[in-house]
C-alpha cells in the first residue's frame, strides 16, 4: 500500500495511506492460499469470512466481497484502516511464515471503499419485533451492537453525549489515519438499518437511569473516556493536556483551524508527548501537523512501544523524536509550561506483562525545553453512568464486569468495549459488542 511522502502529509490532515488500486488488490488477493482451515478467521475478533471475501476480490466480484464483509462487520472501511491486523488476521496468515502475509487489512479497506463509491446495499433487516433496545454510546462497540440488534428487527435507540456520533472514532483517532467522512458514512449505514440516534444526551443526566432500565435490553458502550494523569508537579500549568483533550480539541472541535473554528489550542513550538501507545503516536503526529517540534517520551525501550509498528514508523517519518528509557518527573514553568524534567530509566527484570520493569537511574535527571506537554498514559472507564446503575458490579479498575456473553450483574443489561475491558482496540470493542448483541437478540427471542 502506498503512502504520501512525509513532508507533504505534514501540511494537512489528509489520509496518509493511499490504499490499493483495483489491480493491486486483485494481485494481492490472488496470493491467498485459500486454506481449508483458515487461521486468519480465528484471528479476527468479528470472525469475517476472510478467504471468502478475498476469493471474491481475486475474481473481481467486488460486490460479493462487500456483502461477505458486511455480513460480519458493519464498519469495514474503519476496520480496514485501524485494526492491528499484524497481531490478528495477518499475524496468523500461513504465508507470513516464509514471506509476507496477505495484506488482509488493505484488501478490506479496498472493498469497503469500492462499495462506498458504488453505493452500499444494506443487509436484510428482520420484521419489527416490537422489542426496544437502548445502546449507550455511539463508539465502535455501540454502533456495532446497534447494527446487530437493528438487523434482528428490534427498535434500537442510541444515546450519545457529544454533538457527533462515533466516540473515539470521531474525537480520538485523527483524520490522517481515519477520515471523518468515512466514519460518518459507516454510521449512516447503521442508522439506515432503522436505529435512532439521540445526540447531546448524557444518560444518567439527560435520560434518567430508570428510563433506560425500562427498555427490553440495554447495552452499555460508554468506552474508556476518563483520562489518567501522571500526578507529577506542574500538571496544572497552561499547556499541559491529556491526550483526550488535545485530540478532542483538534479532531472534534477543529482547533487546528482556529479562529475559523472557535475552539482554541496551545499549539506549542516544542511539544513533549508522554507515552508509547497508539494514542501517543496520534498526539505526536497531530502536534507535528500544528507545526511543533515533537519529542515522544517513553519509559521503556523502542521495542516495547505498545503502538502499532506502522504508526511508529509513520511518526518517525514525520519527524517525531523518540526519547526512550526516560520518564518525566516534573513539569516546569508558571503560569505556562517552559520545560519538562525527566530521568533516564534502566530496564530490569520483566514484569507480569513480560516487558522489562523500568527503574529510574539515580542522578540522571535532564530537562527538555518545551511549551506543551501531552500525557497519553492511558484512560479508564468513565464512572458517571455505571456508578448510577444499582447493582452493577465493577472491577478494581472501574470496568464493568461481564460474562462471556457480555451480560453484566444486572438483568437485561449488557456491556462491551472499553467500558468492560479498559482501553483496548476498536476491533476488540466490536467483537465484544457483536457477542453481546447476539446474547441480547437470543434473550429477546425467548422473552
Amino acid at each position, binding site marked *: 500500500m502506498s503512502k504520501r511522502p512525509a513532508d507533504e502529509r505534514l501540511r494537512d490532515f489528509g489520509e496518509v495511506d493511499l490504499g490499493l488500486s483495483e489491480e493491486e488488490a486483485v494481485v494481492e488477493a490472488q496470493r491467498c492460499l485459500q486454506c481449508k482451515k483458515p487461521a486468519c478467521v480465528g484471528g479476527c475478533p468479528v470472525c469475517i469470512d476472510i478467504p471468502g471475501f478475498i476469493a471474491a476480490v481475486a475474481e473481481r466480484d467486488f460486490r460479493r466481497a462487500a456483502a461477505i464483509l458486511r455480513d460480519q462487520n458493519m464498519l469495514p472501511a474503519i476496520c480496514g484502516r485501524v485494526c492491528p491486523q499484524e497481531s490478528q488476521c495477518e499475524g496468523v496468515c500461513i504465508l507470513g511464515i516464509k514471506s509476507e502475509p496477505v495484506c488482509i487489512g488493505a484488501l478490506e479497506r479496498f472493498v469497503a471503499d469500492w462499495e462506498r463509491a458504488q453505493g452500499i446495499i444494506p443487509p436484510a433487516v428482520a420484521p419489527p419485533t416490537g422489542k426496544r433496545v437502548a445502546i449507550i454510546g455511539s463508539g465502535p462497540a455501540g454502533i456495532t451492537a446497534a447494527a446487530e440488534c437493528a438487523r434482528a428487527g428490534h427498535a434500537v435507540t442510541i444515546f450519545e*453525549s*457529544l*454533538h457527533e456520533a462515533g466516540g473515539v472514532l470521531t*474525537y480520538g483517532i485523527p483524520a490522517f489515519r481515519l477520515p471523518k467522512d468515512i466514519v460518518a458514512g459507516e454510521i449512516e449505514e447503521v442508522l439506515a438499518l432503522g436505529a435512532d440516534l439521540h*445526540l*447531546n*444526551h*448524557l444518560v444518567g*443526566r*439527560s*435520560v*434518567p437511569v430508570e428510563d433506560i432500565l425500562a427498555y427490553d435490553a440495554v447495552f452499555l458502550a460508554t468506552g474508556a*473516556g*476518563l*483520562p489518567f*494523569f501522571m*500526578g507529577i508537579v506542574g*500538571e*496544572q500549568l*497552561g*499547556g499541559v*493536556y*491529556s491526550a*483526550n*483533550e488535545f485530540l*478532542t*480539541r483538534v479532531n472534534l*472541535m*477543529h482547533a487546528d483551524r*482556529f*479562529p*475559523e*473554528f*472557535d*475552539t*482554541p489550542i*496551545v499549539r506549542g513550538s516544542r511539544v513533549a508527548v508522554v507515552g508509547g501507545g497508539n494514542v501517543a503516536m496520534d498526539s505526536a503526529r497531530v502536534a507535528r501537523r500544528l507545526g511543533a517540534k515533537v519529542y515522544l517520551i517513553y519509559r521503556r525501550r523502542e521495542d516495547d512501544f505498545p503502538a502499532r509498528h506502522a504508526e511508529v514508523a509513520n511518526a518517525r517519518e514525520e519527524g517525531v523524536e523518540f526519547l526512550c528509557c526516560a520518564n518525566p518527573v516534573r513539569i516546569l514553568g*508558571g*503560569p*505556562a509550561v517552559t520545560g519538562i524534567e525527566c530521568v533516564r530509566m534502566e530496564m530490569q527484570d520483566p514484569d507480569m506483562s513480560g516487558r522489562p520493569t523500568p527503574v529510574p537511574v539515580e542522578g540522571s535527571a535532564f530537562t527538555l525545553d518545551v511549551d506543551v506537554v501531552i500525557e497519553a498514559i492511558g484512560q479508564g472507564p*468513565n*464512572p*458517571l453512568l455505571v456508578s448510577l446503575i444499582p447493582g452493577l458490579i465493577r472491577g478494581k479498575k472501574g470496568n464493568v464486569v461481564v460474562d462471556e456473553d457480555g451480560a453484566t450483574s444486572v438483568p437485561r443489561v449488557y456491556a462491551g468495549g472499553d467500558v468492560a475491558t479498559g482501553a483496548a482496540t476498536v476491533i476488540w470493542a466490536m467483537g465484544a459488542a457483536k457477542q453481546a448483541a447476539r446474547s441480547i437478540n437470543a434473550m429477546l427471542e425467548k422473552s
Partner: protein
Amino acid sequence: MYRIEKTAETADNIFEFWIHAPHVARHARAGQFLVLRIDEHGERIPLTISATDGDSVRVVFMAVGKTTTQLAAMSPGESIRDVVGPLGRPSEIRKWGTCVVIGGGVGIACTPIIARELKEAGNTVIGIIGARNAGFLLLEDEMRETCDELVVCTDDGSKGFHGFPADILKERLSTQTIDAIWIIGPAIMMKITSGVSRPFGIKTFVSLNPIMVDGTGMCGSCRVTVGGETRFACVDGPEFDAHEVDFDELMQRQRIYGDSERRALEHYHEHQCRCGGEGHE
C-alpha cells in the same frame, strides 16, 4: 436544534435566555449546568442553569468572549445547534437548618434555584446578593420572593449595603447560627468570601467555572485541585467544599486562552463587518 424562546438584556451586557431543551429542563436540579455549541464552527461552553420552566431552561451570561457575544446577538425563534445537560452533580440539598446563599455579579443568576430547593427541603434561607451597582442586581425580586430574608449590597453603595457580601456574611456568622453556605460568583469573589467562613468551620460550597470542552469527564480540561487532589469540575463538581479549593490555580487556568479569546473576538467582529453585520455563518 434548540430554539431560543425568549431573550432579554437584564443589565448592561448581561443577557437572560430561555432555550427549549426538554432533555435538560425536565431533569435539571439546582447547581447543575449545560454545555452549548451555537453552530458548526462553535466551541462548547458551559453555562450554569439558572431556572427551568416546563421544557425550557434559563441561562444568564455576560457577553465577554466570542461565543457569548455571538449568542447575545441571537433572537427568539433562532436555534442553537447543540445543548447537552444537565451536567455535573446537583447541589447538596438537604435539611441543614439555616443556609446562606450568596451571589456575586452574574453568579447571582444561579442563586434563586438553589435557594428555592433549600427552602423546599425545609431550610431557613438567607440570601445575600452583591454587584457593582444597583443596575447589576440581577433577579433581585426572584431572590426576595424565595428567601426568608434578602440582603442586597453594591460596591458603590447605589443600593442596599455599601460593600461586599463577605462583609455581611462576616457579621451574620458572628451573630447567628448558620449551618451551610453557598457562594456563586467570580473566582476571586468566591475565594475572598469563603475565606470569611473558614475560621467558623461551617460547610461552604462554591460553584467552580473552569474551562471545559466536553463537560462529561472525558478531557480533563476542567481539572481543579480540591483538598490536594485533582478533581474534574464537570463530573465531580461543579460545587466543591470551598475551604479545600485551590482558587489561585483555578484563576490561573481560567486565563490559559486569554490571547486566543481576544483573537477569536476580533475575528468575529471583522467577519461580521465583512458580511454586512449578519454574523458568523
